[in-house]
């Protein structure tokens, strides 16, 4: 029987290597060994992705490597996630999030990384894609009873959309926390415009999301 430390190590290694098959196998081994699936996700898969995120920030790895890592991560998640709901820790269901890149913006690489980190953190994420109009966000948030709305914008032309949307969302979606992000944004603008949270990168986005939902 494999010990848990070895399985966790294999899960995170599989993610770091971008090896889908290895991730699937390690996830199956985690199930076979009777591990807490939430722990396998957080300390195995997510830990590997967090390490990749750190390497990216330091210029030691690049987006194509992040892409294959995220594929491996999703392969592992596909096995472990369905088991979490039934597990003792009951840690899943941190909440429901809606995410999208705002109208006029088709940059979605960063947004997709944020989505992934929210998913591994236990949120159910509804992704509206890119170039999303204001009403589409509102409709989706109402439909899925979103706890969190995540807006991404990468350009000076489109951060203006976030600024315009925020008061409307505040009025129409009183139960939904709003988190914003994207390279031209910062905490100061987020505060000024009345967003509930801001995240500089995907890792931080997950931390802020959890804080917002628990707070």
């Amino acid at each position: 029987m494999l010990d848990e430390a070895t399985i966790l190590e294999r899960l995170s290694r599989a993610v770091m290597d971008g090896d889908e098959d290895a991730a699937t196998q390690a996830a199956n081994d985690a199930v076979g060994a009777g591990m807490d699936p939430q722990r396998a996700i957080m300390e195995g898969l997510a830990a590997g992705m967090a390490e990749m995120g750190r390497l990216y920030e330091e210029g030691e790895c690049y987006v194509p490597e992040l892409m294959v890592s995220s594929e491996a991560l999703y392969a592992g998640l596909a096995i472990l996630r369905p088991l979490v709901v039934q597990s003792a820790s009951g840690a899943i269901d941190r909440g429901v999030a809606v995410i999208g890149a705002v109208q006029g913006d088709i940059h979605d690489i960063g947004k997709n990384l944020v989505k992934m980190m929210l998913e591994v953190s236990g949120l159910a994420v509804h992704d509206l894609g890119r170039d999303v109009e204001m009403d589409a966000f509102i409709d989706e948030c109402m439909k899925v009873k979103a706890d969190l709305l995540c807006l991404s914008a990468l350009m000076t032309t489109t951060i203006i959309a976030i600024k315009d949307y925020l008061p409307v969302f505040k009025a129409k979606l009183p139960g939904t926390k709003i988190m914003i992000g994207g390279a031209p944004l910062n905490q100061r603008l987020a505060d000024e415009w009345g967003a509930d949270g801001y995240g500089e990168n995907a890792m931080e986005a997950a931390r802020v999301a959890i804080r917002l939902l628990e707070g």
Partner: protein
Amino acid sequence: MLCDQLSSRERWDALIRGDSLDRVPCLQFMLGHTAVVNGKPIAKAYDDAATSLSCQRNAMELYGHDGLVMHGWANSGGAEFGGEIEFPYRKYTGAPMMKRNPVQSEADAWALKVPEDFLSVGTIPVALEFSRLQNELGMPVTIQVGSPLTWAGSVCGEERLMLWIMKKPELVHHVLGIITDFILKKAEYWVKTFGAERLMAFDLCIETNKLYSPKQFETFAFPYLREIHDQLTAAGVAIFLTHICGEQNKNLPFWSQLSYGKRGMISVGKEVALSAASAAFPDCVIMGNVDPVIVQEGSPEDVLALCKASIEEGKVHPGGYALMTGCEVPPQAPPVNVGQMVPACREFGRY
């Protein structure tokens, strides 16, 4: 008020010949913004050759810029291979965007071909009309020739492309080969129609180290750029204008190996120091690198201060220097901010 000794036309010619100048020239890459200051929809800068040209010329005169007038954008290539493109008519849109990439699967990628009727696909008819008008007016005739890797993102979708770079490199090389053939075929037509000596070939290249490693750049961007630059230089194309977008410090050793015809003009973003560009391209004109975000969001004083810093760093470059923003002027930038640049050249850029 400080007076200029040269007209814009004379200053441009002197910059290209490498002659002495009265002051630092100001060149700008701006499309959407020229439509805005002309009271036209931004999309007209892209989908209507005559309007685009007249908006650009009017704005150039309004601001006193010494260039650039051109038609193109970073996210191009996809429409030419059958993808669906949307021009920026809707609110918040500032540049053309791909609505559907033509390549959705590996099978699509393997089946990719240079279109037979290449003059009628995508936005080529508008680009050709734009070049015809430039030619009639005796201006440099521009043609977008790259970069193939940037185009491949538009053809395949950037995320799919990046996954294939890791998992199916041979497929990516196949796509890049076809795109390069297409660009060369288009360029051959431009050379035949307008004459190589009239052409200014330009690249808009987003392969930054925020996305790709220098090794990936070397493998997937560099060989195709080299093929295009070599062939066009051999055909007699005189001027190359290459916009190296964003953080590309680790790619500079590759960029500096390309041939740039008689006169290379290299534009860099705020992430690349002008001194670093100067060291990498001693014989080329370098242009940059005022932060476009500040040009939109900052005060006129902020913009002036950035211009001063760029001018002081760039002016000493032996190959020639022109003040420019680090990427396209944001369409909604306040005209008063954009209007700081030429006065900055007059005040801080005298030779």
